[in-house]
């Protein structure tokens, strides 16, 4: 029983790592551009499908080679959506941006369905028996998830606190006008934000698809989870997003022990509503 419980905790942390990657990207875009990008889930989904595209016939690339190009394609998708859709709307009202990103999300989701159909796919690895560690079974893929997301967090920390660009992004997130007055190049920082957010989304999507499977609906449901994690940690707060992702992942996996597994994806929403009820509006202003 205790090893069963340990396994659940482990699965929760695993999912939490991935949700944290999603949530950090979402909260970055929110912090810098000040709107919730509904299409963020679709970047996740397309990241996974780009890898599928490269590993499927006719290319048949191995994972190690296809991995980086897939991430690059995701970044291009993110940059492209900014250049052609969100940049012309930079000064539009927030609600216009919301509808636009929802439209984009729907467009991209059905685009994937157009090319690959609605069915659930996998990368076609044979299922490996995981190694046992303290009674918890870990597959090589899961090990890769933990290693790469931890690596990502460390790099993000270094980027945001040590590099000039990271610092200017944080400054813009705090106050765009003030950052501009101080001579911070906001256009470049915004581009960088998209690069990082789509990179994290693509990476998370690939890791998630390695651990489970991929289908066109995976974007939307993970958007809701990422948003719940963002809310938990405080919007615009990077480390809060990390923590929030962990909490969502853990509670989702623990709750499955009690509830019907069909509701696994509803847990995040439940947590979100609970957060709203308990802390109302105060939570949304973490910076003060």
């Amino acid at each position, binding site marked *: 029983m205790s090893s069963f419980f340990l396994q659940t905790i482990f699965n929760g942390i695993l999912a939490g790592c991935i949700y944290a990657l999603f949530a950090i990207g979402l909260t970055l875009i929110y912090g810098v551009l000040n709107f919730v990008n509904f299409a963020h889930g679709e970047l996740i989904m397309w990241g996974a499908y780009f890898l599928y595209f490269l590993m499927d016939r006719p290319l048949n690339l191995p994972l190690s080679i296809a991995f980086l190009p897939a991430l690059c394609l995701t970044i291009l998708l993110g940059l492209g959506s900014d250049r052609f859709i969100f940049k012309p709307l930079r000064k539009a009202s927030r609600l216009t941006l919301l509808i636009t990103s929802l439209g984009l999300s729907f467009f991209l*989701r059905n685009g994937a369905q157009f090319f690959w159909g609605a069915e659930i796919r996998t990368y076609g690895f044979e299922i490996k028996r995981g190694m046992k560690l303290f009674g918890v079974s870990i597959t090589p893929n899961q090990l890769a998830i933990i290693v790469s997301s931890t690596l990502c967090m460390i790099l993000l920390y270094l980027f945001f606190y040590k590099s000039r660009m990271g610092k200017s992004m944080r400054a813009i997130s705090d106050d765009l006008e003030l950052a501009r007055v101080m001579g911070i190049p906001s256009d470049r920082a915004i581009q960088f934000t998209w690069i990082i957010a789509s990179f994290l989304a693509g990476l998370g999507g690939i890791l998630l698809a390695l651990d489970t499977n991929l289908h066109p609906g995976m974007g939307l449901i993970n958007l809701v989870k990422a948003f719940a994690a963002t809310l938990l940690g405080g919007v615009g707060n990077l480390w809060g997003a990390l923590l929030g992702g962990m909490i969502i992942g853990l509670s989702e996996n623990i709750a499955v022990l009690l509830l019907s597994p069909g509701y696994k994806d509803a847990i995040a929403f439940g947590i979100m509503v609970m957060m709203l009820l308990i802390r109302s509006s105060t939570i949304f202003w973490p910076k003060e």
Partner: protein
Amino acid sequence: MDLFLHLCVMCLIYIIFALSLNLEIGYTGLFNFGHVAFFGIGAYTSALLTLHHFPFELGLVMALTLSGIFGFLLGLPSLRLRGDFFGIATLGFGEMIRMVFQNEVWLTKGPMGLPGIPKPTLFSFRFATLPQYFLLTLGFTAITFLFLRILIRSPFGRVLKAIREDEIAAEALGKNAYRFKIKSFVVGSIFAGLAGALWGHYTTFISPNDFTLLETILVLLIVVLGGKGTEWGPLLGAALLIFFQESLRFLRLPPEYGRYLAPLQQMIFGALLIFMMLFRPEGLIKERGRRVYAGTQRVE
């Protein structure tokens, strides 16, 4: 003729659906991205009750009541949020409700759906044929249109518009914005429930797959395309889009293209939504007497 009447019925049902969303998005500025949830609640409630041999009148009343109650329960926490967070909360709610339809097999038969929903009988008159059903939906659409028109033009409607334009200013004038928003949200949900109930009895078969994001996008596009915050916009938008959608269905393409057609059509919807926002955010019909338009409002 039957095809034309079918188009009209679908169009009328979506007009009710879109009018209810227009009250929220167009007049109150509530960005509800989970409107399909109430459509679904209405459809399932009325279908389940009539399938268990309760009269249609009761099914309809319960459909409206339950949609309203769920609207109230969702609005209570989420309307305290700012616009975009409210959007995500409702989007999540829409997905959640679909999961409930899918998982509560004892009630909804899950993914198998509910077949054989009886045609409605109102005051012992059975609306069985297509022209009769057309008259029924026409009646309900007229009621919805007139009710919402009176509501919008009443002092209540003016407060809603004031909240949409400037919530703080409305509060400064002593209006409790939160309460007005909840009222608007509940009314919108009730009419979405009405549209759902009518739709369920029309198609006679509903399943969780009928209440996905597609419906939300479609109804949102109807409102945005026609012109949000206008009385006639949703009617125009519904006419255009439902005609487009349903005509594709009769386009007798060979079945191997069917797999591409549905996503393609939905890609068009998504692209159209982006296009409208980029180039004509006010929609085909402009709201009169509104100088600063939300779509192009400058924030500096």
